[in-house]
């Protein structure tokens, strides 16, 4: 394979137009990096001298910490900026924030922002690499990549699997990134949830729609259960959390009724007893904590590849040496 075809280019803002080869390259690059996090000294000099800003306009624990560990384990110099302590609350525009960061000569920005398209906006205006850590309701590419890696770890493949995304796909950036990547890798994709939370037109992409969770579970090899945000209830999309759990909750009873074992993922944070019961989250079907572990490896792989690293050199890189 020609390395240029595998190259991610400058940024990772979306998976919509990322090729099968590129996705597989990220997943394969993550494999050797998994081991770094299992070492006593969890640090390799791959990104030594690189400056990375983690720019989080929305609250995040898991994603921000995961990126920060990935950066530090690759020896990058990192700075964290949260919206609540920054010039953003003083009224600075996104474009000015970007220009100021650029003026400090940084190499990469990892950004989470409440507006769809914010990562692309930034990437078109600064020469540094931009990694989208979630933009509004648009995409969350590294989350989908870690979901894929986790599925592949447990089922050995992605192609031909039936993956159902359960819940609020309408407002979910995780859902969009998963739909694109899964379809690109040849999985069958379905969405199950209240009709009020189905994204208009999504069926045109070749996505199957279920309104009954029992049918979705019977169909699926994998369930990726989305968090139901409380504000959806206030917005009238669902009448009550109790009803949501009653109708769409992923429960042990429903999984046991299925004809085959179903792998259960959740991007977190979970509302136990709403979209997923504790028995499931903590039970044998769940790979939710594996997702978190894989998240660090996936983000290491993305950082490494965007910094110019090659997949075939990743094994050597983690033994020492820089990009």
């Amino acid at each position, binding site marked *: 394979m020609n390395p240029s075809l595998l190259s991610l280019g400058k940024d990772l803002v979306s998976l*919509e137009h990322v090729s099968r080869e590129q996705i597989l390259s990220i997943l394969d690059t993550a494999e050797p990096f998994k081991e770094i996090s299992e070492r006593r000294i969890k640090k390799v000099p791959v990104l030594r001298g690189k400056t990375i800003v983690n720019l989080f306009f929305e609250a995040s624990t898991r994603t921000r910490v995961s990126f920060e560990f990935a950066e530090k384990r690759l020896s990058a110099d990192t700075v964290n900026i949260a919206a609540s302590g920054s010039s953003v609350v003083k009224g600075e*525009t*996104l*474009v000015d924030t970007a220009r100021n960061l650029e003026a400090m000569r940084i190499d990469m920005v990892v950004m989470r*922002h409440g*507006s*769809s*398209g*914010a990562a*692309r*906006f930034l990437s078109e205006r600064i020469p540094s690499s931009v990694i989208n850590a979630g*933009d*509004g*309701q*648009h*995409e969350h590419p590294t989350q989908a990549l870690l979901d894929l890696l986790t599925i592949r770890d447990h089922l050995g493949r992605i192609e031909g699997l039936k993956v159902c995304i359960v819940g609020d796909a309408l407002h979910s*950036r995780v859902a*969009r990134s998963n739909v694109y990547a899964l379809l690109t890798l040849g999985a069958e994709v379905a969405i199950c949830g209240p009709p009020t939370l189905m*994204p*208009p*037109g*999504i069926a*045109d*992409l070749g996505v199957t729609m279920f309104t009954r969770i029992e049918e979705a579970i019977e169909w699926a090899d994998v369930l990726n259960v989305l968090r139901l945000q409380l504000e959806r209830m206030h917005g009238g999309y669902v009448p009550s959390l109790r009803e949501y759990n009653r109708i769409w909750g992923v429960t042990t009873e429903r999984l046991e009724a299925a004809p085959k074992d179903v792998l259960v993922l959740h991007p977190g944070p979970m509302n136990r007893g709403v979209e997923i019961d504790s028995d499931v989250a903590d039970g044998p079907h769940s790979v939710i904590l594996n997702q978190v572990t894989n998240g660090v490896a996936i983000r290491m792989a993305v950082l490494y590849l965007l910094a110019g690293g090659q997949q075939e050199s990743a094994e050597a890189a983690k033994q020492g040496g820089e990009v």
Partner: protein
Amino acid sequence: MSEKLLLKGGRVLDPSQDLDGVRDVLLVDGVVAALGEQVDAPEDARAVDCTGLLVTPGLIDVHVHLREPGGEHKETIASGARAAAAGGFTAVCAMPNTDPVMDDPASVGWVAAEGRKAQAARVYPVGCISVGRAGEGLAPVGEMVEAGAVAITDDGSPVMNSGLMRLALEYAQAFGVPVADHPEDLTLSPSGQMNEGLVATRLGLTGKPNAMEDIHILRDIMLAELTGGHLHLQHISTRFGVESIRQAKARGVHVTAEASPHHLVLTEDAVDGYRTEAKMNPPLRAQADVDAVRAGLADGTLDIIATDHAPHHYDEKEAAFDDAPNGIVGLETAVGIVITRVVNEGLIDLRTMVERMSCQPARAFGLPGGTLAEGSVADVSVLNLDAEWTVDGVAFLSKSRNTPFEGWKLTGAPVRTIVGGKIVWEC
């Protein structure tokens, strides 16, 4: 000292007189003094050679936002009036969603006076329907009309309250002004950013379904039917909306309606990539809607081409999509877009273009002009149908350059704009 201007040898196209031929037009003291194949002009008349050019009754844009007072960094009455003249328009109707809003005779009169000072296109103020544009109590329509208002609207927002809309349609009949509504049922998507559908879903943007517009259009038509008032529906963008207006007209309802140049030539695909310069309300829609708006323009369901000129400062559009304001500038691209993409593509002929951009705007809003008949107001647009040019927002006389047509190669451009017998702009 009287002023005399002779427009010599142009192709005069005046649908109001069923005229299309080479004529001379003599303008004296602000009125059309003579129109004929060979007009003998007084010696002190200034003669302007219009050979090879199209001479039409002055173009009128019944839907512009001039932003003053309150948004002078985007546009002023003076810059907007000059941009209008540079776009071939001799008159514009200024929407009242300024800050403060135009909801009383003082503010309406002030805008009219500022418009006269600009000495460019005429500026006709449009007053609010409701006090404070708040959608509750009826504004002083009679006093605003006395101060110069030519219509009422809460544009920028719909009149959500059906009871208020009924009262407005009844009350305005006393003054002979149309009630213009921005048709949008906000309850269906209060935070919508673009047309609902796969493009919005892909971009993660909240959609606005056609039904938002369709429901409101139908409601307004029912209220116009109930009251007998003159309903003017602004910037129609949906196929069902066009069909509803067509049926209402067939029933004899007093309804007029606009198509904007952008809804005639652009689909929601122009938004892809989070292009804020294509963010507007109503949003760009699907191809089937564009086709319907075009058909509605051609068959007269949509009487008027109006730009919805909505200037915004460049850094307001330089933002994440949901933070960027709605609207695009339109005054200085309308003629080129309509000639290139509507007339030259065979959808309508030039005569129909002049009807939609001059005669019918004048008729619907009760404005002087829309004709070059002797004795009428000397507002004239002179266009070069063959001029080829490229849209360059930096060159606009408008203070803003938020156009989705940047870089488009167009054919057809204004060359001379005459208001009250005076040349207010020429290229």
